[in-house]
């Protein structure tokens, strides 16, 4: 999975979890919890959505590394099988 695909996947997952959040103007380094008001329940749902879509299982101990769109994108690029 390249950077563009990964970014699109993450954005899709965020939109699915928080349909009313304005992901279109989300910057790569914006903190999701601050800018989109994403809480721990939303974060879990995003992790579930990513697991469902591309099989990447993000363990709980890694949640702390995932604050921004860039963080998620990099994580997917590193961990996705294809």
């Amino acid at each position, binding site marked *: 999975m390249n950077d563009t695909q990964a970014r699109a996947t993450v954005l899709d997952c965020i939109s699915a979890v*928080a*349909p*009313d*959040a*304005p992901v279109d103007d989300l910057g790569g380094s914006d903190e999701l*919890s*601050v*800018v*989109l*008001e994403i*809480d*721990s*329940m939303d974060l*879990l*749902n995003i*992790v*579930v959505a*990513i*697991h*469902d879509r591309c099989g990447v*299982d*993000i*363990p*709980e*101990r890694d949640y702390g590394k995932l604050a921004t769109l860039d963080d998620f994108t990099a994580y997917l690029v590193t961990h996705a099988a294809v």
Partner: protein
Amino acid sequence: MADYDFTLPALGADMERATIIEWRVASGDHVERGDIVAIIDTEKSEIELEIWHGGTVREILVDAGEEVPVGAVLARLTGVDDLLGALASSAPSRGPAEASARRPPRGAIVRSPLVRHLAEERGIDLEAVQGTGPGGLVTRRDVDVASAEQQRRAAVVLASPRARRLADERGVALAGLTGTGPAGAILAADVPRSTSSPGRTPAMVRADSMRRTLAALMARSKREIPHYYLAQEIDMSAAMEWLGGTNAERPPAERLLPVALLLKATATAAARHREFNGFWIEDHLEVSEKVHLGVAVALRSGGLVAPAILDAEDKPVTVLMSELRDLVARARAGRLRGAEMSSPTITVTSLGDRGPDLVHGVIYPPQVALVGFGRIIARPMVLDGAVVARPVVTATLAGDHRATDGDRGARMLATIDRVLQSPEDLEDRP
């Protein structure tokens, strides 16, 4: 330095008049903020009346023995220092009665066209102004004070960063908006699309009507329910450790959030302390056979709903978690079921990992208890005489004093604590 008219405050929403029994001060006396200046007699009891501004008593206008309405000027002071500062730092000794005393009993009384004009010019809502003139009349100085207070507040507008950014992009002034977040903070949903066309989304319209319904319910709660409040700090080490180990072995869809453990512990405790699980109907408690656990869910549009997880005491924590995820998703999509909305027998509010340390909740009538959880945070605890850092959560109970008392409430909280010390049992039925 300023003059100040000391008026009869409404000490309780239902107080309309009082009789001065005696003055403790005379013309020429100096008074300090918080001094008792007079004894008054209301329908309920005699009350020692404090003054909230320091200064010199110039003139006493109401003699002992006279009965006067709320808002009447009792005395005039001169040399009052920093009128605004005294208003702004009104906190410590002002109880609920004092807070309500700042509001006139029936709207604001305005006679002077000049005052009306001034208020209009400065965008002051006269209904919200405490009149200090005779009979609660709003004077020019009251408008000056309200205006200064408004400017002070406008300087510190509470808003989420996302709301700030949206307001900036859309050219909307934050100070003019009404916030629906904690402490009136402005959230993204409170920011209109643009100043020319308010562009209210269906979600915002729904949030408005939700707010009105909630307003009526919460006002009723505070009017009818004599709340008492208890708090207990709970060591979450065992719970968090078990949670970490459990989640490490599970795929994302089956993982648990700490809130699921808190909900399960509350449901278990409510099942054991039935007097907290039910409704106050007319003059008696009707205990519910089942625990239908209400969960307060904040909506992104700014509303708040508290639907129930049905039969929560019978469900293992994993089932509770999946139902909670489903419930929150549907609450946010506006698709809740009638049974979920009408059935809660006790409610939990947990303001999440970015929330406050503790929350003193307002009971949803006709329920008789609300359990609140602050965020789970590492704090120093004393264990075996040594100070160690532990994850703790502060659990609070708001109880209806008609149905239960503090002793019962303490046991309820103790059970929640005890259950959370054996988290592995939360997977079993009780």
